[in-house]
Structure formats: C-alpha cells, structure tokens
C-alpha cells in the first residue's frame, strides 16, 4: 500500500503543475482546473489508507470534518454571485492557511520530538499560515462589507512591526527549545500571529484587497509547503511551494496591472500621504 500511496502523491503533484500550466491560457483554462481536481481527489483518497493513522474515532472525525467543511464550501461556492468571487477566494484561502497552522499546532501541542531544522520550519509554517488565516478573514470581511472602516492610527507601522517581532521571538524560542516549551507559550505565539494578520490588513483599503488576497494566497502556499516538509509529504511540499512562488509572481503582476508596487499597496496607507509620490 505504501508504494501505491507514493505513486498517488507523485501523480497528484504532476497533475497540479500540469493543471496550473493549462490554467494560464484562456483556451485551456477550464480543462486545467479539472486535471488539478483529479489530482486532489487521488491524493485525498489514498490518504485514508496511509499507514500510521489510528483510532476509529479519528477516522470518524476526519470523515465528519470533510463532509461538513466540504459541504458548506460547496454550497457557498455554488451560490455566491460572480461579483463576490474575490472575497470567497479570500475566505477559502484563509481556511487553507488555518489548516496549515493547525497541522503545526497538533505536532507542537503533542511536543513531538523533531530535529532542529524541522522544528524551526514547523514553527515558521505555523506563523505564516496563521497570519494568512487572520489576514484573509479580514480581507473577506472588508470585501463582504462586514468591516467598512479602514482603521489607521499614528505609528501603526511601528506597532505592527513590534507585534511581528515579538511573534518571531516567541517562535524562535519554541523552535529552538526542543520539547521544552510550555503550552502557554505556544498559545501566546499563535495569538500574536493572529493579531499581526489582522493588524496588517485593517489599514489597507478595499480596492487593494485583490492584491493582498493574492499575497496571502502565496503565503498559504508557502505554509503548506513547509508543513509538507514537517510531515514528509512530497505532494504537499511541491504543490505548496509551486503555489508560493506562482502566487508571489501573480501578486507582483496584479500590483503592476494597477500601476503600483507591492510595497506601495501594503504600506502606503500608513500615516499620511506618500502614496501619490511613490506611485509616480
């Protein structure tokens, strides 16, 4: 069975790249998503038979979670109006980031013994995934009209940087301390990462959201790739990193299509002015 699973993951990775390639041309785009979908189906089905998974309860939970999560997403995706698509992408993307963070969460809560590199990458993936999670949810709320106000205050950039720096510091402590970190530290780390995602996104205006969503999309890809490394799953590594780099390029292209630079989109709204000068 192990061999079949390896082959299935390999096939999935090939289909993802093939599908993305097809999707980058208008003529073949529709076939592209179907191929990628086949890859996903194959990968998910064989995962049920992955050796080492245990417990009838765990399998039951897995099944229930897939049915509920998939069902709700299916219905909402089918019903949403075409004009509301961007915020749905933000929502689904945030869910992916949250899932990557949850994978790291399970491994870290268990105090799974890992080598130094693996542990640091697990923590890094958790940080990126959590920021993409809360940031995407704010992007969704903004486009959906749930959060209309653009919240700005003096020295916001520095407050955000401070929160980020403390989150990174806590991450380093967790990453470097073997299994010696406490559950409380882990909790504060995730809380800081969540807050940073929110704080980074609230000052950005609604018109810039598609670029920001694309950035979080790339970040989620990166987080998925990192957690794939932690779990030793090549399909996740390849798909995640491919999306990470493709998403980064796409973000730049989208910013360029608006005649802006990415830095301008992300930071120009802080403080006063500056935007018009940089945009020129």
């Amino acid at each position: 069975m192990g061999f079949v699973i390896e082959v299935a993951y390999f096939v999935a990775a090939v289909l993802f790249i093939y599908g993305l390639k097809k999707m980058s041309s208008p003529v073949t785009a529709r076939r592209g998503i179907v191929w990628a979908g086949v890859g996903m189906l194959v990968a998910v089905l064989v995962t049920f038979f992955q050796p080492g998974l245990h417990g009838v309860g765990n399998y039951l939970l897995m099944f229930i979670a897939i049915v509920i999560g998939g069902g709700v997403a299916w219905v909402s995706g089918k019903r949403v109006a075409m004009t509301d698509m961007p915020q749905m992408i933000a929502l689904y993307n945030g869910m992916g980031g949250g899932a990557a963070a949850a994978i790291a969460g399970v491994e870290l809560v268990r105090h799974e013994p890992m080598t130094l590199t693996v542990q640091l990458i697990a923590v890094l993936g958790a940080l990126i995934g959590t920021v993409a999670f809360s940031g995407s949810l704010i992007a969704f709320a903004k486009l959906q009209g749930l959060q209309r106000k653009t919240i700005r205050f003096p020295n916001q950039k520095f407050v955000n940087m401070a929160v980020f720096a403390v989150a990174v510091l806590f991450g380093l402590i967790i990453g470097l301390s073997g299994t010696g970190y406490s559950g409380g530290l882990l909790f504060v780390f995730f809380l800081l990462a969540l807050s940073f995602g929110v704080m980074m996104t609230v000052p950005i205006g609604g018109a810039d959201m598609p670029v920001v969503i694309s950035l979080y999309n790339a970040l989620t890809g990166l987080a998925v790739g990192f957690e794939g490394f932690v779990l030793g799953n090549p399909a996740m590594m390849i798909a995640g990193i491919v999306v990470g780099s493709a998403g980064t390029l796409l973000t730049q292209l989208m910013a360029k299509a608006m005649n802006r630079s990415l830095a301008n989109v992300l930071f120009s709204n802080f403080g006063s002015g500056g935007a018009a000068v940089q945009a020129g």
Partner: protein
Amino acid sequence: MIEGFVALYIFMLAAFTGYEVISKVPVILHTPLMSGSNFVHGIVLVGAMVALGHAQTPLEQLIGFVGVLLAAGNAVGGYVVTERMLEMFKSSGKGGQ
C-alpha cells in the same frame, strides 16, 4: 522523511516551476489563476488528515478536526469557485473545448 538537501532541491525546483508556469499569463486570467492556485494549496487537506489521524489527546483531536474542516473548505470551495469562473471562458471563446 525527506532529508536535508533533497528537500532543498525539491523546494528550489518547485519554486522555479511555479514561477515559469505563471510567467506569461494574460491580465484577464489573474483572478481565476489566483483562485486556481488557491485550490491547489487545498492539498493541505492531506496533511490535516494525517495530523488528525496521529492525534492522541482530545486537544490534538480538536485542533486536527478544525484543521481538516478548514482544509476541506479550502479544497472544495477553491474548486467550485475556480470552475465557475473558468466556465465563463468556455462560453465566450470558441476555442474552449
């Protein structure tokens, strides 16, 4: 487990692949492609299933459950939305299959 440099090679090659695949995309496909790549990282579902399958305590099960729930939403929602968006290209362009 994928060790050290092999992992680094995978990362490097995958990064270049992602970059090359997207490099010549027309503006009209920016949003569908963002949605499509959003679907592709739905592969996180596989990892979330493994994490939940390894869970031992109720807390681990809870986090794993939330992970699978979110990941399933990412994968299914990503697919549905991308498919609907790309559907429009079929009706407008004669070449689309």
